[in-house]
């Protein structure tokens, strides 16, 4: 079955520091990949999606960027974190005509 490994599970970073969150996919190839952010007790905000290597689309303007250097690798980055970047980040994958499958998430606190 398809799974997503996402790390780290928790992260505390100072304002202005860089960020790199990574997720990798197992059990399927050429998935669509997504980064979502979820504020406490709130819904999912789609940040980025990718339909293939090197193909990234941004849903909202922000301080973050995404990259997909390999088919099963999706990275969320920032050069300088802001306090407002704090939140819970979820990586998700999806194959055609199937439901989305999720990683376990990263809780990011910017201090």
């Amino acid at each position, binding site marked *: 079955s398809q799974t997503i490994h996402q790390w780290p599970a928790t992260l505390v970073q100072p304002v202005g520091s860089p960020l790199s969150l990574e997720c990798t996919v197992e059990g399927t190839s050429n998935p669509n990949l997504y980064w979502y952010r979820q504020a406490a007790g709130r*819904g999912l905000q789609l940040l980025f999606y990718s339909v293939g290597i090197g193909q990234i689309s941004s849903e909202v303007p922000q301080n973050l960027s995404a990259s997909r250097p390999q088919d099963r690798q999706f990275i969320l980055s920032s050069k300088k974190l802001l306090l407002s970047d704090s939140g819970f980040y979820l990586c998700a994958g999806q194959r055609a*005509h199937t439901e989305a499958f*999720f990683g*376990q*998430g990263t*809780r990011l606190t910017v201090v």
Partner: protein
Amino acid sequence: AQTVTQSQPEMSVQEAETVTLSCTYDTSESDYYLFWYKQPPSRQMILVIRQEAYKQQNATENRFSVNFQKAAKSFSLKISDSQLGDAAMYFCAYRSARRTSYDKVIFGPGTSLSVIP
């Protein structure tokens, strides 16, 4: 553009009772998928149930069932015999069934369900 609405930010149910969570969506497409996801306190997203729009029969998974009304664009989730472990945030989601390379999943804002012992 497609949208998904969940009009109940919070719901509560007595243990062993039945609760229904509401979801409506807006789309001009005729072929699509609908999902209910559960997010417990661990924050792991778990698929609860899936419905294909072309199927008239409502999907069921053990204590979970849906009432899919395509004309009304309504997709409610019924949880029977509620258990303490059902306490979670529940998200309704939509996905187009078009045969293109990209069809993102659109999530509703979620309903927080509490189960009262």
